[in-house]
């Protein structure tokens, strides 16, 4: 039985950074048939190339498809912060662009002697030098890359914090940050990999009835709701935002943003006014910050209060995890002092540091939460959270979307993949066995 004809390019890119070489090999039919995709296939590939210290980036069968919120790609690697195998989800457009660029999985082996960038385009991988980008802040790096590569459609990259081997460095998807709290940026920096760009200009075939299935799911979801735009704040409310944090958000202008093909945006761009202590000539400055980290905002807001937005923006600029930075910020500091501390953290090399402390996140065991990068908000309780996140990480659907809408069943999404009842049953069995593994 071949379930995944239309859902994969059936190509794996193998990159050896130490040799500065790459090859594209066919994806093993048997592998996707058994493991379905996403984190499950990534784990298998990780185990195959275990000796080469691999970093795996992969998509699920539904990534880029008509299934709602089909935006996910997963990075699998040995976390330098948690010390275990981690699956960090990438939302926004990385997953679909990776798939549309003709490669389903990337296996990045070894480490380069100088900073490198990977360009994935039309099923080919180019390894180019990124020496000139070392130390650049994230916005500067993106601007340079856009000029050099003629506007790549998606970029994941590390900032100066990773360049300086800061353990709490975090990967950024464009200028929008990510849910990486497991040290993926540190792992990329240890391989001298500055970033990966995807130029997804190839297409993906689709099954005729997929559009109808999408419509049915969305119609049922939003039948009772007049407006679908929920934004970042709605997720914060689900995980229990404190009243004082609500006050912080009142004086700002929010614009809700969604990942690829997501009908219910869970991120927001915030326009805020702040008094930049470093620029005395222009006391009231309007600025924007993109909020996608539902764990990072409350953590930073608790420390920074009303200054949370410029502090988060600073973390995004340097490529830092706001949760880890918030822990390091001293209490009752001025904005200027806090900004200076963030800059200091970004430029102070410290090497890998495995976190020993582990707190339960809501009802979710710390170890399980860390397994998925430590950035997925605890929207649902314990076991249900775990099952939904596993499910999303394998199929290539945004985990936050599936946590926000538990009424979407696995069965609903299997329908996008299966041609008939027999396939449906087979998929359910496989998924169950993967979970048990």
């Amino acid at each position, binding site marked *: 039985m071949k379930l995944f004809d239309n859902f994969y390019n059936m190509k794996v890119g193998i990159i050896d950074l130490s040799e500065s070489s790459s090859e594209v090999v066919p994806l093993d039919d048997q592998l996707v048939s058994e493991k379905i995709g996403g984190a499950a296939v990534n784990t298998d590939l990780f185990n195959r190339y275990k000796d080469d210290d691999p970093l795996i980036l992969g998509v699920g069968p539904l990534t880029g498809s008509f299934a709602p919120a089909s935006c996910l790609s997963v990075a699998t690697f040995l976390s330098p912060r948690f010390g275990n195998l981690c699956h960090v989800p990438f939302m926004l457009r990385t997953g679909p662009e990776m798939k549309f660029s003709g490669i389903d999985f990337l296996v990045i082996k070894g480490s380069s002697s100088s900073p490198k960038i990977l360009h994935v385009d039309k099923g080919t991988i180019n390894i180019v030098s990124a020496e000139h980008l070392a130390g650049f802040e994230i916005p500067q790096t993106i601007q340079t890359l856009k000029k050099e590569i003629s506007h790549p459609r998606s970029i994941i990259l590390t900032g100066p914090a990773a360049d300086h081997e800061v353990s709490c460095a975090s990967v950024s998807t464009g200028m929008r940050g990510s849910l990486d709290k497991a040290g993926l940026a540190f792992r990329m920096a240890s391989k001298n990999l500055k970033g990966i760009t995807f130029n997804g200009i190839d*297409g993906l075939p689709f099954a005729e009835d997929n559009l109808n299935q999408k419509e049915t799911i969305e119609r049922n979801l939003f039948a009772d709701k007049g407006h679908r*735009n929920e934004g970042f704040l709605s997720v914060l409310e689900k995980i229990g935002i404190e009243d004082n944090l609500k006050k912080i958000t009142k004086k700002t202008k929010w614009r809700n943003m969604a990942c690829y093909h997501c009908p219910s945006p869970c991120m927001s761009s915030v326009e805020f006014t702040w008094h930049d202590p470093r620029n005395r000539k222009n006391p009231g400055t309007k600025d*924007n910050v993109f909020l996608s980290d539902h764990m990072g905002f409350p953590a930073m807001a608790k420390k920074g209060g009303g200054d949370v937005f410029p502090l988060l923006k600073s973390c995004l600029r340097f490529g830092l995890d706001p949760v880890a930075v918030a822990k390091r910020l001293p209490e009752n500091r001025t904005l200027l002092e806090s900004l200076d501390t963030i800059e200091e953290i970004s430029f102070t090399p410290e090497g890998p540091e495995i976190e020993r402390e582990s707190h339960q996140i809501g009802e979710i065991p710390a170890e399980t939460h860390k397994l998925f990068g430590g950035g997925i908000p605890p929207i649902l309780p314990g076991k249900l959270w775990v099952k939904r996140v596993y499910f999303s990480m394998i199929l290539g659907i945004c985990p936050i979307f599936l946590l926000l809408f538990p009424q979407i069943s696995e069965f609903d999404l299997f329908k996008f993949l299966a041609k008939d009842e027999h396939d449906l049953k087979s998929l359910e069995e496989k998924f169950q066995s993967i979970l048990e593994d």
Partner: protein
Amino acid sequence: MQEQAAEQNNIITLEDLRPRREEKKTFSDYFMPRRHPSILFDPKKCTGCGTCEMVCSMRNVSKIAPASASIEVLRDEENGRNFAILCQHCREPLCVEACPTRAIEKGEDGIVRIDKVFCVECGLCIMACPEAAPFKDPITEEINKCDLCEGDPLCVKYCPAGALTFTKGKKIRWIKGLRWTVQAISFLLLAVILVGTFCSLKAGALSLSCPAGVLQNIASSGTVVLVWILSAFLILGLTILAGRFFCGWICPFGFFLDLVDKITPKKIGWPSFLKSRMAKYGILAGAVGGSCAFGFQAFCPICPIGAICRSYGTTGTLNGANLGIVAALAGLEVTERRVWCRYFCPVGAILALFAKVGLIKIVIGANQCKKFSCIQCAEVCPMGIIDADKLREGISPDIPMTECITCMRCIDRCPYGAAKIRFRWQKIVPGKIEL
């Protein structure tokens, strides 16, 4: 010459293959303009999910391939804003003009299409389009553009945030009908039935007067009578409430000029060195100064509004000199629309001063306005105050209420609902493009 030579040599020309379609204006076009279909994009609602690109590419290349979609969502990451690039199906499409093989045509239904049989993929249309809406499909390597899915755009249908709206353009211009009716009734009342009453009407305790006449009266007599001032206040109060509504809807001479404009649609242009809208304030000052010097209302005998109001009707007197003034000023309509109102009318000058502190303003909403692809508001404005050049640059123009006669032609004509009346204090800033 080339065509003649081609004819002699029996060469088939482009004109033979693809004769340019001539758009004939029918009588009904004056009242129910042709459809101008388009997709409106609301950047405030767009979440950047790209569902529009997915479904569009599905139709274009039978694949999910956002790069092959006729609509492109640009994501301004730093500012967290999205903007869509899509064909506006312009009224006068530049791509049609640029295409050397006439492969692009605007159909009767207003949709601009590419006939791929004739397209040689030169890419001139991409360069000519201000939106860069035509594009080279990376999969088929053909030039493609939005064809509005032949009237039922998929992107609009599937946009989860409702950021896209399909409009076929307004069909019925009801404001136009209402304005002509009000203007005709006002003309009948002021110029035929209640002859001379615009200049001064006294009905019992109620006294109504032309504000310019009152000002000249005060200047000539050297006395200020409160009743005179109050009598002028009807028009001035109306101006504070609704701008120069009097000029656009009530003034009998304005109506007369609008009628003249209908028979002189082609304009030869007013000399640029005379294009000073301050002239009317000079005339007003001259009228007041003259009245003061000569001891009578110096401007009233030659006032075209007064001339029209006093010269007709059962009790009116046909005044040859007055008719000469009216005829001469009507003749100016061959140069520009409402030349008198724009540059010379002293009544308009007084009303302009009050409109400046009025309660309303006309705005062209930056978000909805399609600017360079439309420019219809600038074309219909009789006072010529909507800056077409700014629209061509992609900027929503500022509309000076001192010059606006609140005729609402721009509101009536705008197919996108971008031109609106707003209170002065409402926060809509024309001139800025809000992404």
